[in-house]
């Protein structure tokens, strides 16, 4: 088809990548804003969720926050933030147009998967391991830092991975309102009937998303403290993460 050839031409033309407003600059903007938002959400959400998991309190909120987050359209929240007087459409340093609004929205949308997974991760540490720690005379803090945290790490990381995917997708949607980043290539292309451009933007966004997901998956494998010798173990470990979380995020069968 003709559109594919045009898309390829757009992608391979260096002029579309270079300079101000070029795809390279937008790509950097979007990566920067995604990473910042993810870091902010981790700083805010992880300590609270992990400690709540340690105490075993606030489970209802920690688990249901994911369900609430799912029902709120990203696009609507971003639109409201941009149209409000605060934080508005202003540019914000290297983050570009509507930087503050997008940053806030991205951080908010990264929180639910982080909080739910971190809480469930600590809660799922086996009771006998906890009792063994108690029996060894560990204090609450010792038990938290030396037993619960290391065992919870793989599931916490799968929350980070989910949040990363979510943040990248949200950062793309930001372009529908006024956000910075690659999504603008897509919306510009579509609103001006320059479809090859829009599709080219989509291809880049999708490829980066897949690369980020693969990177996060390999980081997750590296930090896993339980040794994985057999092939079967590795396969189970990879698929167990998201599946366990799906089950946890939704009270199955209730």
């Amino acid at each position, binding site marked *: *088809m003709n*559109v*594919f050839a045009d898309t390829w031409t757009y992608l391979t033309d260096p002029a579309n990548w270079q300079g101000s407003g070029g795809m390279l600059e937008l790509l950097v903007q979007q990566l920067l804003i995604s990473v910042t938002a993810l870091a902010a959400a981790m700083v805010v959400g992880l300590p609270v969720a992990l400690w709540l998991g340690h105490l075993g309190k606030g489970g209802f909120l920690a688990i249901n926050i994911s*369900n609430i987050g*799912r*029902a*709120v*359209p*990203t*696009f*609507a*929240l971003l*639109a*409201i933030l*941009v*149209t409000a007087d605060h934080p508005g459409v202003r540019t914000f340093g290297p983050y570009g147009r509507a930087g503050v609004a997008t940053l806030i929205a991205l951080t908010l949308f990264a929180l639910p998967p982080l909080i739910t997974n971190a809480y469930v991760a600590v809660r799922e540490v086996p009771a006998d391991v906890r009792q063994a720690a108690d029996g060894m005379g560990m204090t609450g803090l010792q038990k938290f830092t030396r037993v619960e945290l290391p065992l919870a790490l793989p599931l916490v990381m799968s929350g980070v991975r989910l949040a990363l*995917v979510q943040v*990248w*997708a949200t950062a*793309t*949607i930001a*372009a*529908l*309102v*006024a956000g910075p980043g690659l*999504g603008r290539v*897509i*919306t510009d*292309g*579509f609103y001006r009937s320059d*479809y090859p451009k*829009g*599709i080219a*933007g*989509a*291809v880049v*966004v*999708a490829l980066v*998303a*897949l690369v980020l*997901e693969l990177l996060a998956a390999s980081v997750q494998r590296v930090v896993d403290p339980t040794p994985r010798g057999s092939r079967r173990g590795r*396969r189970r470990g990879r*698929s167990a993460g*998201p*599946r366990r979380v*799906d*089950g946890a*995020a*939704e*009270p*199955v*069968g*209730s």
Partner: protein
Amino acid sequence: MTLLAQATAAGQPSCYSRLTNEWFCTQYLHDYRSEIVDATTQHLTITIAAVLLGVAIAFPLSLLARRLPRLESSILGVSTGIYTIPSLALLPLLVPFTGLTAATVIIGLALYALTVLVRSMLEGFRSVPDEVVESATGLGYGAGRLLFRVELPLALPVIMAGLRVATVSTVALTTVGSLVAYGGLGNLIKDGVTTDFRAELFTASVLCVVLAVLLDALVVVVQWLLTPWTRGVRA
């Protein structure tokens, strides 16, 4: 500022006028009623069509994955890969095939729902106790009857939990369809942003959340009707 506000209050009491531009405005609901109803109807149609299409694809896929374990990891892998692609990027990738139509949005959203649905169906079938399957086989149930009379009903609670997740997230994602002008309430949100029309934007956003909650409740009611045997033993 106060002068302006008074002037509008005296002249034109509409609370969505350029000058006041309030977030919530009953006058707007009244004046733009048909537009709001149209957008909501489109939103509902697209959401329901997408979820149904998702179920229609996910069901045979999960049966296939269950029959051929070697295919299971690749089916799960591909559907997770699709899930990783941002919605705003997935829709443009479908446009060369389906054009700027509602079908683009419906197919895109169905692909997202697929990930959750296939997972929950596999999980659901796995939750059926082996003894029950063996007893049914012993009673002479064939493959088809075993599936529809024994396994599917027992897997239903887990499947329905997945359907709830898929429905709620599809309602939210439908707004992104405004890229190809088929976004239901998303079209109102986009228009609200570009024309700085706060009442329109806020009303459409709230309606999205309300739709999500209502459809979620609907799935719960359907589940309640379909699984009468679970009603007494609610823990």
